[in-house]
């Protein structure tokens, strides 16, 4: 749906900023695609290239076969009506009521009054603000403002929704409710969503695919579950830092080190998807006459895929232990056995 080809963007000024240094990315239709990176990584510039708010110095943005960078101003405005956008600071018109804010893009598109009336009511119901149409933005909470932003972005029935740090100004609870709303829109309307964020949990909660951006380059991308459970790029590992695949505390690792022998092993088990549902530990205990001691663990969920990580100590006869390890490998569980150094 969206193809980004070798995008470059430099901001001249006292300090020259290379915001994008050759971005290549393909964003498939119907998915929720997250772009994560720290501030200054170039993600804001990247998302603005998609709807032409920023013009890349070099490279192409193809949206549904249309080359965004080559459109005339008039054609660009027409195309933008099919691309909704929501913002970190909502960017609602303070002079307009909730109703009139949502009506704004419809007025721009030249829709008749009666049609606007109907459409706005429908949108406000969808985002759960049916009773707020006469309120002004300053009377709303952050979450409500973002709901108005979403209703406004959906007004012209776009094929694509761009989210620019849409939940970064919200508290965790409100963030969750906004993310749920976005996911519902994605599922019910089949709308493609591209979001940029610096918050890991946002990606984890709703994204299908993720791209990690750093220094204006895409370091890694793919399905969220793959990228987050088996991070390759150092940028990803840094971002993951303390969050999901949390590193095992260094103290614990030191304690383990050197204690492995034939009848005592330590292993890190990573479960993803269906294997997370299987009672592997209890099967081990029942079938292999080994003892399992859980030293550290974490279980989480990515979108609807559960995943977890356990650090276990296993004791038993050497033969039985080997069989147990084999059993674990057969069950689609990623395992890393700690050896004596």
């Amino acid at each position: 749906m969206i193809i980004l080809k070798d995008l470059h963007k430099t901001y001249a000024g006292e300090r020259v900023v290379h915001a994008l240094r050759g971005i290549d990315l393909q964003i498939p239709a119907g998915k929720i695609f997250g772009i994560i990176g720290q501030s200054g990584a170039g993600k804001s510039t990247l998302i603005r290239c998609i709807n032409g708010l920023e013009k890349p110095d070099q490279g192409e943005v193809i949206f549904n076969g249309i080359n965004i960078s080559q459109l005339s101003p008039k054609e660009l405005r027409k195309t933008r009506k099919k691309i909704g956008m929501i913002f970190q600071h909502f960017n609602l018109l303070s002079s307009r009521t909730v109703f009139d804010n949502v009506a704004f893009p419809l007025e721009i598109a030249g829709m008749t009054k009666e049609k606007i009336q109907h459409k706005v009511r429908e949108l406000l119901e969808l985002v759960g603000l049916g009773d707020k149409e006469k309120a002004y933005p300053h009377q709303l909470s952050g979450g409500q403002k973002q709901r108005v932003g979403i209703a406004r972005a959906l007004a012209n029935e776009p094929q694509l929704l761009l989210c620019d740090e849409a939940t970064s100004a919200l508290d965790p609870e409100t963030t969750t409710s906004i993310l749920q709303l976005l996911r519902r829109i994605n599922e019910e309307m089949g709308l493609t969503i591209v979001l940029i964020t610096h918050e890991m949990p946002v990606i984890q909660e709703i994204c299908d695919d993720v791209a990690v951006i750093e220094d204006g380059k895409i370091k890694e991308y793919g399905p969220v579950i793959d990228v987050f459970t088996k991070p390759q790029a150092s940028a990803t590992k840094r971002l993951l830092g303390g969050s999901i695949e949390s590193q095992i505390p260094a103290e614990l690792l030191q304690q383990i080190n050197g204690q492995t022998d034939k009848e005592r092993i330590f292993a890190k088990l990573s479960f993803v998807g269906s294997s997370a549902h299987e009672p592997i530990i209890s099967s081990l205990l029942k079938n292999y006459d080994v003892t399992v001691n859980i030293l550290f663990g974490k279980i989480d969920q990515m979108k609807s895929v559960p995943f977890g990580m356990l650090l276990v100590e296993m004791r038993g006869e050497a033969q039985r232990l080997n069989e147990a390890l084999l059993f674990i490998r057969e069950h689609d569980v990623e395992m890393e056995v700690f050896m004596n150094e």
Partner: protein
Amino acid sequence: MNSMMVTLLWNATKETLYMVGVSVVIAELLGLPIGVLLVVTDKDQILENTILNKILSFIVNIGRSIPFIILMVAIIPFTRWVVGTSIGTSAAIVPLIVAAIPFVARVVESSLKEVDPGVIEAAEAMGASPWQIIYKVLLPEALPGLVLGFTLTAVNLVGYSAMAGTIGGGGLGDLAIRYGYQRFRGDVMFYTVIILVLMVQLIQMLGDWVAKRVAHK
């Protein structure tokens, strides 16, 4: 206070209101587009045009730098061309407007610059044209500031109008000079000052009230 003085004060008040009222409305109508142009042609704005912006800004600065009393005399030929005469209340309106236009332009410019750039970006992202952004976003969003700017201009014009006496424009300022100063009539001076103070207070109060009514922040 005898009836003659009441008549004098009343006529002078009417003349001042007439001069200020007409000139503020016309100056606003002519200054507003210039102020808008100053903003939208600025760097990184919706109709960026640095050359036009610099030229406009230069002209506005010239207008702002000429003292009113000099401007009034300097443009007498222009005034005569517009209203057919260079003497009288109507003739005083012309220099008042000319002096107020650059002032209005700058006041409008600063109000419009207060509009959140994010809101303009959102409108652009929705496919709004520059013209739609001006009249659906910039002007409504800046309305409270524009109202206060209008008030500021009116108050300033009350001050300028006092100099209109130089070209026989009449009004309260002229009355204060001719009677209060030149004829040593301290009472006339006192009353005109009272009326001027009340007038300015009223304009400001009205402006503040309207600005508050249109603000939704």
